[in-house]
């Protein structure tokens, strides 16, 4: 049985932020992730928005954490090598009713401590982004866009660098509490024991909470579908454009440029029973085309390169169905457990502020010594296409693998793919390589590079053809050889 001081259940952005923040202290830390990678669920299936914090009820954890996370993100992005742009955001309106609601949110933003929000007219909107729909808008300068895959991966990699251990494909199936207060976690990969358990299981957080002895929470998965548009559309999109919030204070479909120059259109929003069903529906796509065009004037079929869906784990009041705040708790009647339930949007923005609250809860209950070797810096893979021509020439001369372009749409080189294959978390799926490098995220969607990437995975990791996986579980890519006999 493997023993740790702290085990975190769930390696999404929040779980990985908790792991990273815990490694500032002298603790042995492990993360148990049931999927093949740290960003295959909610953390990787969202808009990649650094929220400002004006939407949330004043005084709520959502408001506090979003504002705190937003303010520090320039430094976080620098430390962790996360692609990030503080683009600002437009929340656009069409009607007088919209205008009243926008004014309400400017006031709410002011109370929450969101800087610089103002109502602007169409003329100002045209200066900021002529492709935005709407007649007037809130301009919120502190909002930004980030790469949610890389942010989650960076938190995890930095945690690993500072001593945390990641166990992928490890699903917790049951928990026992021993007489000495330790917990034994039964998993799909054997038993683990620890003094502290942090539940950051996202969509499964209510289920895990119950396993840990805190039943009664209800998670309502709210699913959203998206389109990813080609960079040709991205050339028009300067700033995230959101519609005025609905009467229920949620956002409908928005159009957001990504840090890489694509455009995301979505999400719609509907309740589902199974939050891990990421299928997209025709009716959903049809709706997005229509509502997306209201936000982004260049929304058209020619620009579609991909669709995806994600689900937000909303904690609801079982009696009223009302959506509740983040739950961050450490209860005296259930010692050794920090419980995070209902961490949904703005969870990405709030990941580190939530993590600090978790650490503080543990520190309030036991004395922790600082880890003198903690290094907050994580360096990502050097990206060829972001380098100047001079730097590119230098990269190739130092490592010829930089001279071999594997993904032609995104200009990703063999050197980057190899670095990704040997990633610190030991992720070895095709999608794992994709989210780390952007290879096959372009308009041909891997038509050119996927055959090369799978060959490199087999070669670098000495894998049999039948062991190559696309993503989670038994997502085998190949059924065997065409012609048998001795294989080279």
């Amino acid at each position, binding site marked *: 049985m493997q023993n740790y001081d702290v085990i975190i259940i769930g390696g999404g952005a929040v779980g990985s932020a908790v792991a990273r923040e815990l490694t500032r202290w002298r603790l042995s830390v492990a993360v148990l992730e049931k999927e093949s990678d740290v960003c295959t669920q909610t953390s990787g299936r969202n808009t990649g928005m650094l929220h400002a914090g004006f939407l949330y009820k004043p005084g709520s954890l959502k408001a506090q954490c979003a504002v705190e996370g937003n303010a520090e993100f320039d430094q976080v992005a620098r430390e962790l090598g996360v692609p990030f742009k503080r683009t600002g955001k437009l929340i656009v309106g069409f009607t007088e009713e919209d205008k009243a609601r926008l004014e309400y949110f400017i006031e709410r933003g002011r109370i929450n401590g969101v800087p610089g929000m103002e109502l602007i007219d169409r003329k100002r909107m045209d200066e900021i982004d002529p492709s935005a729909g709407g007649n007037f808008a809130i301009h919120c300068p502190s909002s930004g866009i980030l790469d949610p895959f890389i942010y989650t991966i960076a938190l995890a990699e930095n945690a690993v660098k500072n001593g945390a251990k990641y166990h992928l494909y490890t699903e917790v199936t049951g928990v026992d509490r021993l007489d000495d207060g330790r917990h034994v976690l039964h998993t799909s990969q054997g038993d683990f024991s620890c003094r502290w358990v942090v539940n950051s299981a996202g969509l499964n957080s209510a289920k895990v909470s119950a396993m840990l002895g805190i039943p009664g929470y209800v998670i309502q998965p709210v699913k959203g579908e998206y389109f990813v548009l080609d960079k040709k559309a991205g050339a028009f999109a300067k700033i995230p454009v959101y519609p005025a919030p609905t009467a229920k204070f949620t956002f409908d479909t928005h159009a957001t440029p990504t840090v890489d120059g694509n455009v995301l259109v979505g999400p719609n929003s509907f309740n589902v029973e199974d939050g891990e069903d990421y299928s997209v529906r025709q009716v959903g796509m049809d709706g997005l085309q229509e509502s997306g065009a209201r936000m982004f004037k260049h929304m058209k079929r020619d620009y579609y390169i991909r669709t995806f869906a994600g689900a937000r784990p909303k904690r609801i009041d079982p009696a009223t169905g009302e959506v509740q705040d983040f739950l961050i708790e450490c209860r005296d009647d259930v010692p050794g457990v920090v419980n995070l339930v209902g961490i949904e949007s703005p969870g990405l923005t709030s990941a580190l502020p939530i993590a600090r609250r978790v650490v503080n809860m543990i520190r309030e209950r036991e004395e922790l010594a600082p880890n003198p070797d903690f290094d907050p810096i994580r360096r990502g893979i050097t990206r060829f296409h972001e380098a100047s021509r001079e730097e590119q020439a230098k990269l190739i001369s130092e490592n010829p693998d930089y001279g071999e372009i594997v993904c032609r749409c995104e200009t990703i080189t063999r050197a980057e793919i190899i670095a990704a294959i040997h990633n610190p978390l030991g992720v070895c799926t095709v999608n794992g390589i994709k989210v780390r490098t952007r290879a096959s995220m372009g308009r041909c969607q891997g038509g050119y590079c996927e055959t090369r990437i799978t060959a490199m995975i087999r070669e670098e990791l000495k894998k049999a053809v039948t062991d190559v996986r696309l993503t989670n579980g038994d997502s085998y890519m190949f059924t065997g050889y*065409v*012609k*048998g*006999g*001795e*294989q*080279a």
Partner: protein
Amino acid sequence: MKRTFTCIVCPNGCEIEAEYEGTEVLTVTGNLCPKGRTYVTQELVDPRRTIATSVRVTGGTLPLVSVRLTNAIPKDRIFDVMREINGRTLTAPTHIGDIVIKNILGLDSDVIVTKNIQKV
């Protein structure tokens, strides 16, 4: 009897209306060239096809070399021929035109290499 044939002799892919008695072709219409009539006759008597597949190669820059038949074989023998080819392995280098199997299954057709593969 009347039937429509799609001629596969060339990319024109003529739709040929044929009248025939048993294996005797009475009339054909729709073919752009005389090969169409020959094709229909052949289809009635003994339909034949060529196939292309691949063979394992060891010690080469690719794990497979492409091969094809030099002459069409009876359509109902295609999978027999595939089985025969599947058992073979070549050693690099290979050259276009190399004969892998001469007169395969006595069907008057050779299996030939269609790709040059260098030795590693």
